[in-house]
């Protein structure tokens, strides 16, 4: 059957077998290999993408079920070789990535947490850890990732404060 997905802002129309998984379409069909397959049973989170803004494990979503939706993959977050987002930059500063296999899934899942936090109280350490339980990492032990999120939230809070602060009152 023919269906359309909006992937990273571009419409993609193709025909897909009914049992095809979204992660297969992204990686094999569309060549978007930034999304990784670590377990194929919904346990590891390396395949997380955002579907209409919400992070989902793309190994658990049928392509057909995503028809008509907006899909954002890691390739849609930055341009190739381009600037890092605030979250990515914070993770870089905390060395939140070692082998990097879990990283795209982490960035996609944490992106939702950090975006949602904007303008509100930053998530606490337990909240960050709880949010991260869907993503496994065997290299870092998570600490640097948690610090990265804390740093990203602090940076965006600071930026927000600067934007709203009346002129001449910063610092």
């Amino acid at each position, binding site marked *: 059957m023919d269906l359309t997905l909006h992937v990273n802002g571009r419409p993609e129309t193709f025909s897909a077998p009914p049992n095809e998984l979204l992660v297969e379409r992204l990686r094999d069909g569309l060549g978007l290999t930034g999304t990784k397959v670590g377990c194929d049973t919904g346990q590891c989170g390396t395949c997380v993408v955002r579907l209409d803004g919400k992070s989902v494990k793309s190994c658990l979503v049928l392509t057909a079920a995503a028809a008509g939706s907006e899909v954002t993959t890691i390739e849609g977050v930055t341009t190739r070789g381009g600037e890092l987002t605030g979250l990515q930059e914070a993770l870089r500063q905390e060395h939140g990535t070692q082998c990097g296999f879990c990283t795209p899934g982490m*960035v996609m899942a944490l992106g939702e947490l950090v975006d949602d936090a904007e303008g509100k109280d930053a998530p606490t350490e337990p909240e960050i850890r709880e949010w991260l339980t869907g993503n496994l990492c065997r290299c870092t032990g998570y600490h640097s990732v948690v610090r990265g999120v804390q740093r990203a939230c602090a940076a965006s809070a600071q930026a927000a404060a600067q934007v709203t602060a009346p002129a001449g009152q910063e610092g």
Partner: protein
Amino acid sequence: MTAVTGESAVTQEATQTSQARTPREHTVLGLPLDIREDPRLLRGEAMYVGDIDLPRTAHMAILGSPVAHARILSIETKAAEQLPGVLKVATAADFPDVMPLPCIWIPGGVESHFPPHPYGLPGARPVLTGDTVRHVGDAIAVVVAETARQATAALAAIAVEYEPLPVVTRADEALAPGAPRLHEAVPGNLNAYWTCGDKERTDAAIAAAEVTVELDLVNQRTINSPMEPRGAVGDYDATTGEYTLYASTQGPHNHRFLLSALVLGIPFNKLRVIAPTVGGSFGTKGYLYPDMALVLLLSKALGRPVKWVDTRTGLMNSTVQGRDHRQHVTLAGTRDGRITAVRCTSHANLGAYPSTIGPGVATALMGRSISGMYEIPAAFCEVYAVFTNTVPLGAQRGSGRAEAAFLMERLVDRYAREIGMDPAEVRRRNLVPKDRFPYDNGLGWTYDSGDYLPNLDRALELSGYADMPARKAEARTRGKRLGVGLATYVAVCGVGPSTRMSKEGMLGGTWESANIRVHPTGEVTVTVGSASTGQSHGTVFAQVAADELGIDPEQVQVLEGDTRKAPYGQGTYGSRSYSMAGPAVALTARKIKDKLVKAGAVLLGLPEEQVVYAGGRVHERGDEENGKTFSELAMALWYGWGLPPEIEPALDETTHFDPPEFNYPFGSHVAVVEVDELTGETEVVAYTAVDDAGNIGNPRIVHGQIEGSIVHGLGQALMEAAEYDENGILVSRDLGHYALPRAADVPFFTLDKTVTPSPHNPLGAKGAGEIATVPPAAAVVNAVVDALSDLGVRHIDMPLTPEKVWRLLRGGDR
């Protein structure tokens, strides 16, 4: 107590220094520079094996045995061959000339009964099994099809008729008379009986001791679980007769050697192995697996690239597993806390076949390490390395050393309780004193350097050890039992001295190499034989070269992982890259500097003694103005004009570094746990680690590895276990059945370091990557036993599941 976490710990100065630092001024080495690998990984742009897509690629799937032990009566492939997209179905009969995958680490001095490889080595296993399957997942047949889905689907159409055989999965049971026999040539399933230390002396010391304590320990089988399952792409070029293998490997050169010379029987120079970005390994990806040979053979047969990527369940049923010892251990000592002897009898479960280096891990790497940080007059270890119907045993982060530390540190705690002394005090009394190095531990290792007491004291201080009684009382008011557990360790790293390793039974040189090429424009390319599986080699080796040459690390490019481009090297395992390839880089840079001084003297028209190399320049001694920059010299040497005959043009040097001895990092960890009285749940509430890896190249890298390592160790203590049922079926076959630590399972840690340089390499470096995985299991079990000790609990087997602890809290078996 102030927690030292994050950046503060990274940049924190060394607190203890037992030996003078290398006197030379460092410019960029030892600094927490940004990791240059990170941006690409964060953008999802790195290329792993699964992401490689060569034109006309066909896809391979492997049929693994569904039963643990059976004779194969017939294999029918016709139906599978007819299915859409299927290009080829192959079984053992298709590859009559392929040799078995060899085992290259046969514990030194033992007779091996294993059916031999044509080159006299034990043939670990055939690439495909034709007659008997010996573990669930044993490879029987492969399908190659147009798509991966088609290949996998066709597996179901292969009909295999099995005659079931009895199954055994425990090492001790496999040795019992009448146990099912795995290999015709191996009587009693015993691959090796291996010993180290002095048996007579140890037995005598134990017999004469004031106090002895004993424990029966199960160091359960674990699954390393790198997030990236293994994969391989084979590409045969019919014009040149050359094979290219892309594989998730931690030792591309080693795999090239083993596959070309010992498996495929093709010339060494006809095989190129490329390790792209590798998604974690922790030991497992250094082993030779059937798929690596199969994608090459099938690419040749089909005239197309052939790609295979494992699933998580496939990984769990076929990638080497770790640990798995059943041990009876004894410690003897005096009433006043002096350890006089330690003895270990271990049954190590090698699984169904000897993996590439699994037998050595289970014996030497474990047995020679059991005395840890302690000066023990008599020590002895014996290992029965046994075959069973389980996945072959291999390395797991901290392999061998973690098993050793576990038994020793459990024993020390048992002993402390027996004599009524504080476990910390017992440890302090028995540490090898600073002035005893190099120290022969009586089991085969000679520790290079160490200053253990300040290291332990620092861990006790940082953890607030003295305040624990008050914290225990406070926890009780909340329905929690607080326990504290210590563990110390010494980890043999920097494998290693080739001759020494040959005596351990390792086939092949274990040296490491580096090449430095200085380009005419002054940029530098460093190429190393090692290959990263997430250790940021590109950053730290650039630091080493830049530091030696006095140039900006930004000028330095680092290449590795492609055997066509890189000099030979063993690869990344046993925490060896920085202390093996690092010195190779440094020594090569020194050769470059020497040449720059010689050439600089010519260019400046001065005698050689009159010029010096400093800050990336050559200049006249006493006249800094009269000199040449690094770039000017590089260009001049590239032109090669006017050089005397003894100076070759260009700057291109290589070093093969074979150290005189191993290096021995060490450390002290303190775990604080709270056990919930109601649920039996164990929460690690604080964890302090003070590790000593000698001089460190980039603290940010090491800090990250230490954090990850500790979590890996906590995983074994609390939740990880590869469980087989009575039929040899791996119950923990996916991540729903095999628990890995998640972010909410751990608190931030308190980390610090001491610095004791190794005398055995020019960087003063010791291994770092996996060392902090060695003690956590012991520290946590010690802590939980401490929390439950008033109930009479003396020991609990890992993993410490809430159910197990809950039963003990309610008066269960102690």
